[in-house]
């Protein structure tokens, strides 16, 4: 075991240690530099509290939209083969590799006042740009692919024989989806939900470009942190600690609530 290849396992361990230290250090530093009193104080400040409330509301709505529309879409992609399926999957993953600023510009070009569908948006009497609804649109755009990817692979991992067994037992296609496919894929769906929610909570660039940064209207926590950064570094640090704590609490709640090790990612 500890022959001349005895260096290999220690090398892997060293790589993991370095990775862990590098990724965790900034998070630790945020809390090390901030006292609990300062965190509480920063929440007492009206602007911070408003930003936190706005973040929670907009991300919750965005996640609800993603789950309601994304779950059936992912099921179709996972269980049916059709011409151009691979192209559709790739297009859906495009926002993953798009820089957030580019995403914001793209949303403006599509839905902004002079955008492709700007006329239709205006005719519907909906204001997106510089409005809370615009924040939700930006969040859905950047976070949806995280959920779609996970949901698709979770549905693809469901044994097709389960779906067929359900059909022979009298359940139609919709009932089979609801009673067998979704419960069987629940672990993967929850993992996708957690990832998408985490991504939405941290969203910055697309929101700034598309919806702007107005206190109480479009200024989510990440934008509020940036707003303070130049003038009040300690305040920015305290608000960052709040965001880390909220994100972590959300992920932990989702993971514990599911009970099947959601972040393990396996569907079965």
């Amino acid at each position, binding site marked *: 075991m500890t022959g001349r290849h005895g260096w290999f396992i220690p090398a892997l361990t060293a790589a993991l240690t370095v990775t862990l230290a590098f990724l965790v250090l900034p998070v630790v530093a945020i809390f090390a530099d901030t006292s609990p009193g300062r965190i509480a104080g920063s929440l007492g400040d009206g602007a911070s509290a408003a930003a936190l409330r706005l973040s929670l509301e907009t991300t919750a709505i965005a996640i609800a939209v993603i789950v309601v529309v994304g779950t059936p879409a992912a099921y179709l992609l996972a269980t049916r083969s059709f011409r151009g399926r691979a192209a559709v999957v790739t297009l859906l993953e495009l926002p993953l590799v798009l820089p957030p600023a580019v995403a914001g510009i793209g949303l403006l070009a599509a839905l902004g006042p002079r955008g492709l569908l700007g006329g239709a948006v205006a005719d519907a009497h909906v204001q997106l740009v510089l409005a809370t609804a615009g924040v939700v649109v930006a969040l859905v755009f950047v976070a949806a692919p995280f959920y779609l990817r996970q949901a698709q692979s979770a549905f693809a991992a469901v044994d097709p024989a*389960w779906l*067929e067994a359900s*059909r*022979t*037992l009298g*359940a139609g296609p919709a009932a089979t989806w609801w009673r067998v496919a979704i*419960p069987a894929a629940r672990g993967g769906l929850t993992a996708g939900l957690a990832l998408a929610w985490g991504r939405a909570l941290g969203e910055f660039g697309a929101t700034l470009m598309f919806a702007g940064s107005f206190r109480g209207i479009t200024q989510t926590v990440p934008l509020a942190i940036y707003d303070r950064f130049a003038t009040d570094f300690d305040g920015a640090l305290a608000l960052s600690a709040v965001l880390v704590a909220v994100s972590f609490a959300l992920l932990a709640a989702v993971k514990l609530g599911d009970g099947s090790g959601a972040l393990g990612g396996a569907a*079965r």
Partner: protein
Amino acid sequence: MLRAELRTRLGELSLDVALSVAPGETLALAGPSGAGKTSVLRAVAGLARPAAGRVACGDETWLDVAAGIDVPPEARGCGYLFQDYALFGHLSALETVAFGLRGRPRAQRRARARAGLERFGVEALADRRPAVLSGGERQRVALARALAPEPSVLLLDEPLAALDTRTRAAAARTLAGALAAASVPTLLVTHDFAEAALLGDRVAVIDAGRVVQEGTPAELAASPASAFVADFSGAVVLTGRARPGAGGLTDVALEGGGVVTSLDRHEGPVAATVYPWEITLAPLGSRADDSAQNRLEVGIVSVTTIAGRARVGLAAPQPLVAEVTAASAERLGLAPGGRVLAVWKAAATRLVAR
């Protein structure tokens, strides 16, 4: 009565099968893997749609491709036992059996599901998920699930294949009991002729997408219609050329040497079949069992002893298998490389044209 006529292409295979199964009867569709057996079950259940054909159960038409009728699987309501049972991983045994009982009052569903589990002796497992059940327990839960909604047809796909040899015998008894009690047409698919003979009232042997012979297990074993059926039912198949012999018997000159004799009348190229348990082995030059017409000097290739029986691989020079007791194998000193006489009666040699 279940009637199915199906024609479809499956890759290289062209499936063309017509079957009918009476209520309370079990038809075993037996054949090698890749013969199209499972495709027949899937088409009957509505899980796959053939290119052409009809499926009717009683006076309901489930499929008539020409007339554009294709009833979806949920409306056909076939009891389907899947090859690896396909139990829902997220449901307990009780919930699994209750799954097909939707539309009934909740209390009634639970009572019926519990009765289904009791019928197969697994009521103690009601709260368990499939992941913690043994293979035999899964089979029982799957049977209870398939039968709970009182299906009009029962379809079984390799019902014993997922089990290890230790549990298979007990599971086969459970299954035989369930099939005997079932009053609906049952179609069972298996690659094992012995399993088909055990569970089927009739056996249809399917090869390359076609039914090559249909009959009771005894009929198939006694008079296989082709060398394939004989081989599939476990017989030794020797090829050669038949010509009339002495005393109204038929002599078959085997390819590669040797002559065997049969009561069947035939001329020209034939397959001579004999079951391994009808062949006895004797030392060279022995006069034992003089009445037997077939005495072939053969080389021993292998000797495999399992549970008191020895399976002896022989070269005549065509390959031949004899099954003798382990005691007689020892008495004869059978060992690879040795030579013995393979002896059997003319009546045990059946001839089919090639």
